[in-house]
Structure formats: structure tokens, C-alpha cells
């Protein structure tokens, strides 16, 4: 297997992009990534999208995008793993380059969620249709049940959940691509409308449009194209039961634990060596549980970590410097790639106001459903 590097990035602003279609936003991000990488061609591409069929009625999105990008006849595939679709696209591209099969591969993600579908119902297709959704469960509902269990087991509080949102909005206010650049106060979060107890509106990531793309190539070639390649030092994926109720614990995400164990092994790193991470904060409780399952904090201490600022920009391990899904936005298929882009920008000193000093090693953790899929990538500046 060859070493693989990321050499270029491109993303649209995340938010309500009313004047652009799903193909427009993807093509824009892809062109930006190709230009940023300064490559004259790509050999292949992967498009991560969760539900273009339900959201905009268009499947076969891999071919649509290659066509409108002017890249036919390159091989192109749409990959899907719910909200982890972008992460899977990145991993497939990584594997294709690492195997020696292709040199320059584009990994992208896209979703257009604001065009009129019943978003709650469409997103719920990532849960167990026959035994969860049939009973009226929504995605906020599933994470709310995780939150209630976490509160019951570990004494996590609504205020601790709110701290995650306050922090992520603060970070997002410094991200020009973020959907919400407004900060929120603890009081605003705590007083926002209940969506599924105990989760409130400001505990939830928004409905967003957006696309994000990166270009990968062998590390050896990367050094000729750019003086700032970023090496992929771990790519791991794991799964868990589709239904939350089938798990032994509702407060531990086994897919995250398994993917993390593989990623740490591949990179010969321990959680202490990760300087910063983009994690899947689709709901505030998700960030708390994930930061525990990644080994950054002891089980049950994730809430306290958020409350005491350990995950803030100035803290022990900055989490979601981009603003996370909460403030940057969550166009589901694009999220996994946007996380990689934040890590890349940090490692190449392009994060502007959000720049972490001496950033050398960062992680992106992307999750699908109530944790039935998890992708973890660790990147290193070289």
C-alpha cells in the first residue's frame, strides 16, 4: 500500500443555497478542489450523498456529477452510509490511491436538503424503518433517548449539553463557510424550543445545503505538486446494530470505539497525541458521547469536559474548531468531507481566525444514523 496525501480542497458555503441546484453546488466544490490541488485531471471520483433521491428526486448522482463536471468517461460512484456518506467517499478514494489503482482521486460529498422534502421523514430512513421509525421515532428522538440514558447513568445535565452548542457556535462565528455565524448564549440554548426531550432546537444541527470535495494522491507525487501535503495516517470504519434498542448500552457507541481502536493502531497513536478533532455533533449529546468513546475523556465525563472548557478552542483538545455540524451546518452527505477540510486547513495553516498553533495531527470522526456507521481518519502535516 502506498502512502496517501490530501492535496487540495474545495467547499461551498453551507446553508440555504436557494439559487443553486444539487449539481451546481457539487460542481462548484469539485472545481475549487481541482484548482486548489493544481492537477490537470482526475482519474476517478466518489460522491457521498445520503438521500439525493428523497431530497431532490435524483439518484445515480455519481454519473450526474461526472457529467456536469465535464469529467466523463472517468469511473464515478455514489457511496452511501447515511450521514457518514462523505467519510465513506473519502475512505474509498483513499483505498483506491493506496492500492495503486489510481493516482488522482476526488472524494466529494453533497446534499440539498432545503428543496421541499419532509426532512424529518427522509433523515429517519437512516434508522430502522420497520422497528424504530414505524413507531414514530425521529432522529432527534433517538439521540434524545441517548441523552436521557446518559443523564440517568452519569448525571449529565441539560446545561452541559448546552455548553457544546455555545462552544460550536463560537467557533463557527469565525468560519466564513458556516451556516450560522452568530454566537448563542447558554440561556438562549436552554430556553430554545424542545424538539425531543431533553434536546432543544439549539442542541440540533440544522437542515443545510452544501458540497465539499478533496483531491487525494500518492504522498510521493504530492510532494511534487505542493509543499504542504497532508498525509492520511489512519482510515478506519466500523459498524453497529441499526436499531438503538438492540445495543447493550445506549451511552456507548461501539462503532466509534471499534473504528477508533483501528485508527489508533494504524497510526501508532494514543488519544493523548491527537491535538484537535472534528467530531460528529449532529446533536449536542453526540459530541459528548463521541469524545468519550474516542478516549479523549473518561466514560461519563464528556459533559463535564464541555462545561469546563476542555474542548474549547483554548482547551486541552479543541473539538469542532470549524463550528461543527451545529454551527457550520450539516448537509448530511457533505459533512464527512467538510470535516476533513477543516483538519486539512488547520494542518496547512489556512484556518485563519480559527488557526490552532503548531497543528500537526488532527482527527475527523464521521457517523451515520444513531451510530450504526463510523468513519475515523487521522491526518498529519508533513
Amino acid at each position, binding site marked *: 500500500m502506498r502512502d496517501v496525501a490530501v492535496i487540495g480542497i474545495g467547499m461551498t458555503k453551507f446553508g440555504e443555497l436557494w439559487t443553486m441546484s444539487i449539481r451546481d453546488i457539487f460542481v462548484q466544490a469539485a472545481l475549487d478542489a481541482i484548482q486548489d490541488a493544481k492537477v490537470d485531471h482526475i482519474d476517478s471520483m466518489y460522491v457521498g450523498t445520503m438521500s439525493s433521491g428523497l431530497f431532490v428526486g435524483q439518484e445515480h448522482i455519481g454519473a450526474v456529477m461526472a457529467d456536469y463536471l465535464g469529467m466523463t468517461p472517468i469511473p464515478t460512484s455514489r457511496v452511501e452510509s447515511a450521514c457518514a456518506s462523505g467519510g465513506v467517499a473519502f475512505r474509498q478514494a483513499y483505498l483506491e490511491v493506496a492500492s495503486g489503482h489510481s493516482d488522482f482521486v476526488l472524494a466529494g460529498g453533497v446534499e440539498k436538503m432545503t428543496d421541499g422534502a419532509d426532512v424529518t421523514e427522509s433523515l429517519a430512513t437512516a434508522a430502522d424503518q*420497520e*422497528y424504530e421509525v*414505524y*413507531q*414514530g421515532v425521529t432522529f432527534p428522538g433517538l439521540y434524545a*433517548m441517548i441523552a436521557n440514558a446518559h443523564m440517568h447513568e452519569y448525571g449529565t445535565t441539560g446545561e452541559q449539553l448546552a455548553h457544546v452548542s455555545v462552544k460550536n457556535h463560537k467557533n463557527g462565528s469565525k468560519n466564513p463557510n458556516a451556516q450560522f455565524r452568530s454566537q448563542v448564549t447558554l440561556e438562549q440554548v436552554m430556553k430554545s*424550543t424542545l424538539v*425531543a426531550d431533553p434536546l432543544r432546537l439549539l442542541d440540533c444541527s440544522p437542515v443545510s445545503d452544501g458540497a465539499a470535495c478533496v483531491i487525494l494522491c500518492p504522498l510521493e507525487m504530492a510532494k511534487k505538486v505542493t509543499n504542504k501535503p497532508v498525509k492520511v495516517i489512519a482510515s478506519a470504519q466500523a459498524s453497529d446494530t441499526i436499531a438503538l434498542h438492540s445495543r447493550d448500552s445506549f451511552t456507548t457507541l461501539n462503532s466509534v470505539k471499534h473504528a477508533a481502536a483501528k485508527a489508533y493502531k494504524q497510526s501508532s497513536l494514543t488519544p493523548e497525541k491527537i491535538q484537535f478533532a472534528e467530531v460528529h455533533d449532529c446533536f449536542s449529546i453526540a459530541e459528548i458521547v463521541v469524545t468519550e468513546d474516542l478516549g479523549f475523556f473518561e466514560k461519563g465525563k464528556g459533559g463535564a469536559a464541555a462545561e469546563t472548557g476542555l474542548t474549547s478552542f483554548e482547551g486541552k483538545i479543541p473539538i469542532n474548531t470549524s463550528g461543527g455540524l451545529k454551527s457550520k451546518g450539516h448537509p448530511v452527505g457533505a459533512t464527512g468531507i467538510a470535516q476533513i477540510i477543516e483538519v486539512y486547513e488547520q494542518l496547512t495553516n489556512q484556518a485563519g481566525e480559527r488557526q490552532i498553533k503548531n497543528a500537526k495531527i488532527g482527527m475527523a470522526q464521521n457517523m451515520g444514523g444513531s451510530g450504526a456507521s463510523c468513519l475515523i481518519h487521522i491526518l498529519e502535516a508533513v
Partner: protein
Amino acid sequence: MISPRYFREIPQRYRLEAGKCKKCGALFFPPRIVCSKCKSKEFETVKLQDEGKILTYTIIRVGPDKFSKETPYAVGIVQLVDGVKLTTQIVDTDLEKIKIGSKVKLVFRKIQDEGKWGLHCYGYKAVLI
């Protein structure tokens, strides 16, 4: 989104029938073809007991369109006395009375109406006992 005929033809949902692995004894609801504990493919059908307790729950206040008339409503994960866990609505109660640990019993109810003809779909819901 899913054909009501499909739901009607899932007998285990109405009769609370689980698959019990003949090799390791693991109990699965719904029944499975492969045991995810020991990989055996040999099962016997057993009827689940209808009593259990709430392990976690939430009150859905923003629901999908098809449940809009019932919103807010409670859903929870219930562990039956046999050990099987399932997701179910918790009904016939003031929402404030629901707690983690509350004892419940499953009852047979209409769950939702399907499609433009409004065909009824049935299944289990939980009531506090």
C-alpha cells in the same frame, strides 16, 4: 413510505414472536435468519412476555407529518422480562408520569395510517402499569 400490506404480513409484530437461537439461546425480536451472537441459523419461535420496563425514552415534540395529530407523544426503549428490547410509543398516560425504570405492558394498537387511502397499520404500544 412502506406498503401496509408489507406490515400486515409481518406476523411477529402482532403476536410478539421472537426467534430463539437453538445453539446459544439468544433471543431476537424481530426474528433473524442468522444469530448475531454465534452465527447459527437454527431458531425456534417463542412468544414474548408482554411486560417490561422503560430503559430510556423521549417526548417527540417535532414529529413527522404522519404523526402530527398525536404530537407531542412519548417513545421509549422497553426491555421485556425475557430480556428483549424494543422501541415503542408509550401511551394512555400524562407524559410527566413516564420515568426511566417505569413498569409497562405492551398492548395491541393502531400505529399509523398509510398512504392516501389511509389504511390502518397495527402493532404494539406500551402503557404504564
